[in-house]
């Protein structure tokens, strides 16, 4: 026969032992074994002892029951606590073990780069596109007629000296050497105006060639961007406005632009265009490597399209006016990136190209 004191003694004993045992539990498996040993629904020691309470008198059963339930609640709450403690211990350990060396290099997808001339060319054309210019391209092998004649530089004109020409070994039916590598992108002025009546607003990027010895600032093979705008009412003031905007977009908003008289046979008036030095801020510091102490950097030639050039291309020069400009892309890239030798561009050393 089971007595109340007997059950109470066992309850006390279970409580003491279970709590002590739980203290030693260190992983999920031991915890589960502990749970089954005390709280298991079939064979748990607490379950078994509570089943035996049925043999007690009703009065005794009530008071013992209260105590038994207290023990059960205690064990259950201790179990929940322990479960939680084990979980966070495990997380802490995982965090400790999974720590990465964040300074190891990343696994990059392969990434190539565009040639600095392509990048600079895009920057230049983008500036003019934003002002309504359209990009067109032309042939690199040209006829004397377009490279010179249509630009007001007939055979024998002294200005031909300005363009050391690479001629092709070919003569036409008349025995004349007429094919050459274009010395500038300007022949497209004539080609465009022959093909289209105004309004015209284009930029022409492309490779050009000169019969010239190579050094740090000269290449025989380089890149230009030509610009041409022809319409009614276009003036020198518009040329200034357009080139100011170009300088602002490409070289920054603080730039000043200087125009000085210069000679190109296909414009009249003709000017040389310079921006104030962005390195010494136009101060003309004597040791400035960019402007060599002048405070100004010459970046292009420009002018109003010569009436004879308009006329030769079939455009009425009394009705229409226009401006044209041309710049060397290498020069602008050299200025922007601080490159001191033009020969890097076509040397194609990857250690150079990767920098841009």
């Amino acid at each position, binding site marked *: 026969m089971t007595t109340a004191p007997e059950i109470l003694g066992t309850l006390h004993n279970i409580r003491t032992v279970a709590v002590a045992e739980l203290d030693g539990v260190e992983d999920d498996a031991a915890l589960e074994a502990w749970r089954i040993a005390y709280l298991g629904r079939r064979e748990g020691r607490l379950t078994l002892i509570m089943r035996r309470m049925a043999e007690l008198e009703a009065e005794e059963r009530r008071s013992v029951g209260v105590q038994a339930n207290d023990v059960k609640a205690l064990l259950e709450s201790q179990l929940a606590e322990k479960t939680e403690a084990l979980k966070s211990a495990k997380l802490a350990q995982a965090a400790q073990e999974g720590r990465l060396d964040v300074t*190891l*290099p990343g*696994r*990059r997808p*392969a990434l*190539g780069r*565009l*040639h600095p001339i392509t990048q600079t060319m*895009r920057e230049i054309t983008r500036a003019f596109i934003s002002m*309504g210019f*359209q*990009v*067109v391209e032309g*042939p*690199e*092998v040209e006829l004397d007629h377009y490279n010179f004649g249509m630009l007001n530089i007939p*055979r*024998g004109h*002294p*200005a031909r*000296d300005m363009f050391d020409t*690479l*001629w*092709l*070994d*070919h003569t036409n039916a008349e025995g004349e050497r007429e*094919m050459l*590598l274009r010395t500038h992108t300007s022949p497209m002025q004539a080609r465009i105006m022959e093909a289209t009546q105004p*309004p015209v*607003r284009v930029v022409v990027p492309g490779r050009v060639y000169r019969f010239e010895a190579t050094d740090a600032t000269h290449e*025989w*093979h380089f890149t230009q961007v030509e610009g041409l*705008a022809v*319409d*009614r*009412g276009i*003036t*020198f*003031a*518009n040329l*200034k406005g357009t080139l*100011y*905007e170009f300088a602002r977009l490409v070289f920054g908003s603080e730039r000043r632009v200087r125009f*000085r*008289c*210069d*000679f190109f*046979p296909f414009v*009249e*008036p003709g000017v040389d265009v310079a921006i104030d030095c962005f390195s010494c801020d136009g101060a003309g510091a004597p040791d400035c490597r960019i402007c060599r102490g002048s405070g100004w950097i010459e970046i292009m030639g420009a002018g*109003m399209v010569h*009436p*004879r050039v308009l006329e030769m291309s079939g455009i009425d020069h009394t009705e229409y*006016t226009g401006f044209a400009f041309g710049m060397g892309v290498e020069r602008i890239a050299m200025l922007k990136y601080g490159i001191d030798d033009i020969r890097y561009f*076509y040397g*194609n*050393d*990857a250690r150079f*190209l*990767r920098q841009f």
Partner: protein
Amino acid sequence: MAMNVPLSWLRAYVDVDMPVEQLAHRLTMAGIEVGGVERIGGWNDCYVGHVLDVGPHPNADRLRLCTVDIGGERLQVVCGAPNVAEQQKIAFARVGATLFNTHSGKVEPLKAAKIRGVTSEGMICSVLELGIGEEHDGILVLPDDAPTGTPLADYLGDTVLELEVTANRPDCFSVLGVAREVAAFSGTQVAEPDAGYPEEGEPVESLATVEIEDPALCARYTAALLTGVSIGPSPEWLQERLTRAGQRPINNIVDVTNYVMLETGQPLHAFDFDKVAGRRIIVRQARPGEKHVTLDGVERELAPPMVVIADPEKAVGLGGVMGGANTEVTEETHTILLESASFHPFNTRRTADDLKLRTEASLRFEKGWRQGLPPVGLRRAVKLMLEVAGGIAARGIIDVYPDRPEPRVITLTAARMEKVLGVTVPMADAARTLTSLGIACRMMGDDALEVEAPPWRADITIEDDLVEEVVRVIGYDDVPTAPLAAPIPLSTPDTAQAVKEEVRDLLASIGMQEVITYSMVSEHALELAYRGAEPPAPPMRAFNPISSEHECLRTSLRPGLLRTLAANQRHEGVPQWYFEVGKEFIFTGDGLPDERQKAAGVLSGPGAQASWAAAEATAGFYDAKGVVEALCDRVGVTPSFEPLDDPFYHPGRAATISAGGQRIGELGEVHPEALDAFDVRGEGAVYFEVDLAALTEAVPQSARRFRSISVYPEALRDLALVVGMDVPADRVREIIEQHPLVARAALFDVYAGEQVGADVRSLAYRVSFQAPDRTLTAEEVQRAMDRLLSRLERELGAAQRQG
């Protein structure tokens, strides 16, 4: 071409009332670029000295002991120069003066010295020591009127402007031309040099005749005659001006011709007229093979249409270029015929080029006709010759000018100024500027000017030339700045350009580095790249190539890319995937070539930079093919590939690329021998090229169309097939994807070997089945698989792989 203008000479015609820096700036802004400013002098502690006494040195025979007065102070100096003499004015340097030391070869301060036991308190200088000449045989002797005690820098110093003159401004190859520029921006006038002289001799027509045979080549010939001249050295002032302008003095007559050329821009030539037969000058074309010895002593073979100045017997000079040795002015010369003429610019240029004899004269003639100038230079020169060489000038001048044109009169209107510049310029201001430039003009009402172009300005021919004359002097800062106000012209989208830039971006984004290589290559390099295959056309050679490395226009991008690869293989760690977008030049007809824009690339080694975390792989055929597929996909083109036989590629590892039935390019593993030929090392390289025009052609005209995405699940099945080795994998995929329930088929395994048997291979696809309107049942999918298998078996002899 450069022109040196000494400031002291410039001041003879115009007041220069600004610092030299400002002068240089104003000239530059007006279009006469000052490339440099050379300062002569700046000597410290140097004075005009007066030699009071010259005595023997007590201890040395060749040295003299001189007493020099430098203005209230007498100094003792040792001098070794043979030409030192009492009463001379000389350049005296005190101890401490900075001079060129002829012993050390350096510029350094003069030290106090005891020379053979006698203290020397300074030095009497040579031009070499002063840095103003090469002579060191004797001391510089100054004119007698040089003021004793004056600092030498004040007496001898000068500033020389080094001008870069543009091709349209031959007038600025003269001091007067530059003076007119200075006058214009100073708002003053030039003092024209004096050209008046007594004409005391016989009438010139009775002494000489001139005849021009071909006025197209020599438009005008003026001449004057001087008798009884005495040839000798020029006076100091004349020698000094020539020296400072960079000319070497010769004798008084020749010096005057050079001086007047530098002063007015008109080249002149003096003949010893007693050596001219028949007292006749004939300007004619050279005869074929005609021999003539020019003043430099070189015998030259001439040919028409070179122009010679001749007498009835012989050529006496080469027109516009150089005089002849046979009529050279010498110490015995008594009679001078002075020529001042106008020769055809281009013919003069060609003559000088052909004879490799470009002279100061030819350089001035070739820059344009200036037919008004000869008499101006002629009269000025006669005046100076009479001054420095004596003699008597014949009365009048000869002036043969068969086709004298009307004066060039141009009207400049305020309306045109505004139309070109966008700003109103008062015509009175314009008139003042033009007048300062020496361009005669008169007001025609308030809004127009009638302008006569002066003889020295060949470049002024149209109204806009005058617009420039005005605005370049006023300055471009005074022109307003205005954005383009005209409407933006309609533009048409340019697909070719868009495709080109898309391709560039795509190739860079997948790890290829863009390069730009030279458009000209050697013919040999092209041969190495074609390896015996027929090129599209023979390459065009340059007439004047830059070098043998760049002798002809490339017909292929291969050499440039392979060279780039080989050169960069020397640097480790650099990704070796390069591409270029550039042109090939194919000359087929007789006219301009077909310029084929291509995107080409070469791949070698791993694409991504070698990494600690990634296995290395070497690029092979399928890497290049993947690049081409990605490139086509970027622009919406579906390419197809066919085997290609081309000796540039490894046999059996190359393909053509086509789209829409047209060939658009090719790719393949480069033949090992081709790699060797270009010094490419390592495990091989793959090359591809796509013709961008052909690719653009293949770009679909319409935009991509949206297809609705099925909401029903897809069923995946693996289909492993065994097919003959010669069955193209693409054909298998095509058949699978043609089934109406197949959404796509992805190849995931290729196997050839023992497990499947000889001459066959296994291809495994993951096939996705899907219907737009329902969920497919297992039975439907199985039926579709069965049907696919039987079609593959029927058409390609394929079998399902067992096990």
